[in-house]
């Protein structure tokens, strides 16, 4: 019976089910904690799955091909980011100048400061390319990373770490800076900490949440654009 069951290890259903179950378990904890950034389900389901793969002696490529259909959906999800941008077109048009200026400045700061630090600390190109798109939402960050010669999985981890950090520090940091405009607060968190920051901003204030969602969607495009320009110049 064990032998019959162990043949399941090569089937997508085993690892798809394991992935969703691990995620759902972590998500229950996250909901119980009122969505505390440190309880983000990816943060806890990922090591659980790594442990299961190690215990069962399953090589990562087997797991990756079993769960490929989850990754496939990231493409249409990125395309769909156009919808929230379109729906807020009136706000974008009215605040075109401050939004464009803040987006350009923030997006460039995210790339240059991240790249600058790893470069100063002597990291190789593959690490630099993985850090560069860190402010873009995970699926975009991963795709840009792959194009620049980085490691998409490493970028995913960096992006998620950014999001957790941004969601945790945004409120005290912006209070310290004396920024009271919820549009500026939300937008800056979305540009720097994408979906995780936006989720946190929605908890604080509806305006902040809406502008954070906008910041996330716009910076996904801007990060990809700036880095493709940089790659083209190289």
């Amino acid at each position, binding site marked *: 019976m064990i032998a019959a069951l162990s043949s399941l290890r090569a089937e997508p259903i085993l690892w798809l089910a394991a992935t969703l179950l691990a995620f759902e378990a972590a998500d229950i904890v996250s909901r119980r904690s009122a969505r505390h950034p440190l309880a983000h*389900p990816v943060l806890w389901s990922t090591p659980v799955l790594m442990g299961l793969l190690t215990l069962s002696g399953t090589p*990562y490529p087997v797991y990756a091909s079993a769960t490929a259909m989850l990754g496939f959906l990231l493409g249409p999800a990125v395309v*769909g980011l156009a*919808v929230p941008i379109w729906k807020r077109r009136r706000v974008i048009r009215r605040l075109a100048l401050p939004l464009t200026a803040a987006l350009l400045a923030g997006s460039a700061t995210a790339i240059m400061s991240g790249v600058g*630090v790893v470069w100063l600390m002597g990291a190789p190109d593959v*690490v630099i390319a993985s850090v560069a798109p860190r402010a873009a939402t995970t699926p975009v960050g991963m795709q840009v990373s792959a194009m620049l010669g980085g490691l998409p999985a490493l970028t995913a981890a960096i992006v998620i770490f950014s999001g957790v950090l941004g969601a945790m520090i945004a409120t005290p940091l912006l209070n310290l*800076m004396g920024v009271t405009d919820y549009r*500026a607060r939300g937008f800056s968190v979305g540009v720097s900490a994408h979906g995780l920051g936006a989720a946190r901003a929605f908890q604080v204030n509806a305006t902040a949440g809406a502008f954070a969602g906008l910041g996330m969607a716009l910076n996904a495009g801007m990060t990809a654009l700036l880095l493709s320009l940089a790659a083209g110049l190289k």
Partner: protein
Amino acid sequence: MRAAVTSPAPNGGSGTMIGAIALLLACQLAGEAIQRVSGLPLPGPVIGMGLLLGWLALWPKERPTLDQVTAWLTAHLSVLFVAAAVGLMQEGPILSRHGLAIAAATVVSTVLTIMVTAWTFRLVASRLGEDDIDEGGEAEA
């Protein structure tokens, strides 16, 4: 506000679920094709996002089904990339050698980006005479 060009459909909206998914896939496909032909170092789905934005601008109307599909995808993004994040288990050597640099870069970049973005927004907005007001209703529009 631009007038909606659609006539009210009996089902209260326009477009089916399959139609909305087909639109997303078609934009992504066109984005991938443009990427391959042009050689732009821009991911196909990001080009697809631009194409969808253009499509929505060319034919502005209410699209409740597309809204639902994209909201569902966005709300469940995390579970879609958890499988990719597991791939980090293969990168032990890089993490142990450069983990500190990566962590430092992430902290510095996250803090600076929030500061620069918020400051720039306020700087330009105040030049335009924009008060810092709460516009929850409009932002949600």
